[in-house]
């Protein structure tokens, strides 16, 4: 079996040491971009941030991105309101009726949908919502973010609800508790910390989603007056400014990136911390 019966113990010791160093080298190599991005975003973002960034809407030079911040929060909030309840309901259904044909089909759909590039979601929402309503809107943007979120929430809920031991379900059922009460007050409650973390990660993920917003929420210089107006977001604004040759706008993009990364990283770190407190693995 072993192809290297000839090599001595010393040689294998040296090879093991070399492999450990190589693996450590891979870790260093993987972390270089993380620290580089963190350093650039922190340094260039901080030097471009000002009070006006948070209070003034998008304008010509040296103004802020208040309406983009509001837009991102608004879209993510709306998307969460659509996707989280539906996703938890679907996930719970998948875990409690896991062998029915519908559950199998929906699980397959969730897996496929989670792998679909988000730009395609934008194309579809553009064709079905924006074209029909005849203009870009916050609602269309939120709908596309919700489509991105839905399979994430469903899969998390399904996976975590399935890790709840069957003995708990059986205990509840043996006491005469109905299936729906078991599902909600035993299964969902037991899996709740994990599901909460999963939802926070899904929220963090869509905070950074840009591609589906390009032709749904589009962009705007103003605060939107209703959900049916085009809406600016930090994500799209960063991309727009990245593609311009203007240093002022680049500085604004760094500042927006700092705010966005702060939101996203805070959410993901918090989600993982909350989960780590509950179950140490």
């Amino acid at each position, binding site marked *: *079996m072993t192809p290297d019966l000839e090599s001595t113990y010393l040689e*294998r010791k040296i*090879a*093991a040491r*070399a*492999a450990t160093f*190589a693996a*450590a*080298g*891979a*870790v260093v190599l*993987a*972390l270089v*971009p*993380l620290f580089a991005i963190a350093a650039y975003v922190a340094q260039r973002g901080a030097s471009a941030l000002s009070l006006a960034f948070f209070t003034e809407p998008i304008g010509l030079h040296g103004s802020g991105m208040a309406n983009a911040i509001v837009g991102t929060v608004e879209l993510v909030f709306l998307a969460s309101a659509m996707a989280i309840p*539906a996703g938890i309901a*679907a996930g719970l*259904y998948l875990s*409690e009726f896991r062998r029915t044909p519908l*559950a199998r089909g*929906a699980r397959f759909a969730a897996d*496929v949908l989670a*792998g*679909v*590039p*988000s*730009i*395609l979601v934008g*194309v*579809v929402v553009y*064709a*079905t919502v924006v074209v029909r309503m005849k203009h870009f809107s916050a609602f269309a943007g939120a709908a596309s973010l919700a*489509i991105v979120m*839905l*399979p994430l929430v469903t*899969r998390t*809920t399904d*996976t975590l609800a399935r*890790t709840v031991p069957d003995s708990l379900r059986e205990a509840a059922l043996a006491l*005469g508790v*109905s*299936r*729906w*009460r078991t*599902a909600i007050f035993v299964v969902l409650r037991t899996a709740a910390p994990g599901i909460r973390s*999963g939802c926070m990660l*899904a929220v*963090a993920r869509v905070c*950074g989603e*840009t591609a589906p917003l*390009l032709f749904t929420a589009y962009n705007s210089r103003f605060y939107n007056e209703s959900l049916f107006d085009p809406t600016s977001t930090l*994500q799209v604004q*960063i*991309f727009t400014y*990245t*593609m311009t040759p203007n240093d002022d706008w*680049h500085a604004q993009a760094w500042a927006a*990136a700092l705010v*966005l*990364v702060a939101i996203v990283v805070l959410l993901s770190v918090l989600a993982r911390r909350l989960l780590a407190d509950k179950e140490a693995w």
Partner: protein
Amino acid sequence: MAASTRSTRPPRPLARPEARGGSGDHTFGVVGAVAALLLAAVLAVVALSVVRIAWPSIKASGLSFVTESRWDPLHGVHGALSFLWGTVVTSVVALLLAVPVGLGVAVFLTDLGPRNLRRPVSSLVELLAAIPGVVYGLWAALVVAPLLRTTVEPWLGVLGGPLFRGPPLGVGLLCASLVLAIMVLPTVASVSRDVLRAVPSELREGALALGATPWDVVRLVVFPHARRGIFGVVLLAFGRAVGETMAVAAVVGSRADISTSLFAPGYTMSSVIANEFPVASSDLHVAALAEIGVLLFVVTVAFNAGARILVTRSRKLEPGAA
């Protein structure tokens, strides 16, 4: 909540006994089924409407869509070959860079690294996955591309060969590949870690008991055992790389051209949709972009399905939102 009429009721149950299959259960089943159907419906709508928008182009160009390399929407010529080329080149180069490094990180986390470093390293790598694609795009366009133009590309140009030819522009296939590599790295690292961790510890212990060094264990026991799973990770990472849009759109150079040189500007399937869909010049142009979307859909679904089959078979627990 109808009270039981039987007299042999168990004394003080913890929850009120209810008739099985009562209206609550029915409602729960219906609400859950509707939510589950919603998922299937969303997928169906996504798939069908992309095909529907693409239909005029599918009818007009047929199979020549994927063999024609010219993309000239103003003159009604729509060939996707250069986008396929750009997508394949950037994704393959990205994987060539990311898979060895990601596997190295995974091995560090499961077998070779000191135990007290594993946890912090794994959370830092996950942080890399949390950074939004646009921020990668911003960093790549304003930091990485200038660095490539002034330093890395002239230096690689000395090596010459078909891969490193032409003027150093900074933006181009090389820059896009680099950013993609960084972006898929956390996926490669964390999913391979799960795959490697699923190798039974009895096998590891058996090899160690026979006098194997930790590297012998990895090389002779863990890797062979996790082979299929690792192949699945590669497919998964490829699916990710193909679908990534914003960071690539920022640095790929946006030119529908086929060049063997990595310095050359190119285009990928996802980034051409992002750039041209809002400004499409004709209905056929829109349809052609949607047809690229159909290709993108098919490719990513195929790779994800393959990855899923290989990865879930070789790991016990699947992570939820990963």
